[in-house]
């Protein structure tokens, strides 16, 4: 059926307003209520007065699902402001409807959001693994593209204490990935450090710097490895660099995103370690 054309991934990147326009002609018969709902959705998508979370926008989406109760995108878009603004019960009810009607498109997205916004490790693993079982193609990335869902799966297993499993997932993913994400090697290094693979961790932090040298956190964790190895000079140098980077805004997203990213380091941690190394 025509629907197959759009169900290409479990995951989507969230747009600012209504996100991408839908090719209604490819999905629905022209005389059907779903086609009308789809067209109505597209009209609102380009109208600035329907800004995300506004009464007008939410009501318009209600009309879409009234006309076409299986229109997953309308549930998904209606859910987004609830997620961003912390009304998670409402978000979950809506996103569950999107997943119910279009699991291939929204299952992975839901898993990524459960991890990123609520650190719901079990929920994220469940959704991502179900997504993986549904698709024969790549399962995709979280809502903003910063992490592949396999990385999120690895974070979740690590948080549940299965660090060895998490490392295997991460390494397997990075070995096959056409390119690494902006923070992937940092997280790989942190996991290796926690598993006491210190030399491998330092290589990963170096790879992070080579891939994306805008992350104070990489220098902080490298300093922690050097501290463990008793290399005071390198430890201090990396901490100073971490502080400099942090103060210039080069660090894992936190304040400038909806949520803190995994393994995020705060200035207080960096300064505390600097104090300890200077006054040892």
């Amino acid at each position: 059926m025509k629907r197959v054309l759009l169900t290409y991934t479990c995951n989507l990147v969230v747009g600012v307003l209504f996100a991408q326009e839908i090719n209604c002609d490819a999905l629905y018969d022209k005389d059907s209520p779903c086609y009308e709902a789809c067209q109505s959705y597209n009209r609102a998508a380009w109208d600035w007065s329907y800004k995300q979370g506004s009464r007008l926008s939410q009501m318009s989406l209600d009309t879409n699902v009234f006309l076409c109760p299986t229109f997953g995108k309308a549930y998904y878009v209606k859910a987004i402001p609830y997620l961003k603004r912390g009304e998670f019960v409402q978000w979950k009810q809506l996103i569950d409807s999107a997943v119910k009607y279009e699991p291939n498109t929204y299952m992975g997205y839901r898993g990524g959001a459960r991890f990123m916004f609520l650190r719901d490790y079990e929920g994220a693993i469940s959704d991502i693994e179900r997504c993986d079982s549904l698709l024969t193609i790549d399962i995709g990335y979280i809502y903003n593209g910063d992490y592949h869902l396999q990385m999120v799966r690895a974070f979740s297993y690590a948080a549940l204490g299965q660090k060895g499993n998490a490392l295997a997932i991460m390494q397997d993913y990075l070995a096959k990935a056409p390119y690494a994400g902006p923070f992937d090697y940092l997280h790989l290094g942190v996991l290796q450090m926690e598993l006491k693979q210190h030399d491998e961790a330092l290589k990963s932090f170096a790879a992070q710097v080579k891939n994306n040298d805008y992350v104070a956190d990489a220098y902080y964790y490298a300093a922690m490895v050097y501290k463990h190895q008793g290399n005071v000079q390198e430890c201090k140098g990396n901490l100073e660099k971490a502080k400099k980077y942090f103060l210039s805004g080069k660090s894992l997203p936190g304040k400038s995103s909806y949520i803190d990213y995994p393994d995020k380091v705060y200035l207080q941690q960096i300064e505390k370690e600097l104090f300890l190394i200077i006054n040892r």
Partner: protein
Amino acid sequence: MVGDIPFDPKLDDTTFIPCDEQRAMPYNKNGGSLCIDGGKDFVNEYFAKGFKPGKVKGQTGWITVRFMVSCKGESGRFRMESMNRNYQPMQFDSSITRQLMTLCKSLKGWEVFQVGKESRMVPLFIDNPDTTSVIKAYDYYQRLTFKMKDGAIELILP
């Protein structure tokens, strides 16, 4: 807008006066999250020191406190929503919720959200960019989500 918190005389302190709540910025203003002096590390430490875990078995899930920060950096209009690990609404023990609400209300240091020459972001409702040459402060919304495990705070989000 989703997330708006209108005044409720049964719940809200009348001394908290927003500057222009019709134009209050949603939580995700400026793509941002926690806007407090000292940042997340300060918040973590504040609750680690102030919250006494109840160790009540089964008190597991998430508690979210949403509120408004006025253009003067004062907080008010606190609302609490809680759910279990299955995302179903759940009433937590009052010994937990009272503590969290009290601590949230006592938390100080909220940043003043200003729009002006230095701002990277212009709110959608400002039609004429020239107006941004005048620095103006706006009310905005914030939230804190507590992931709870058996009555203790497992972690704080965002």
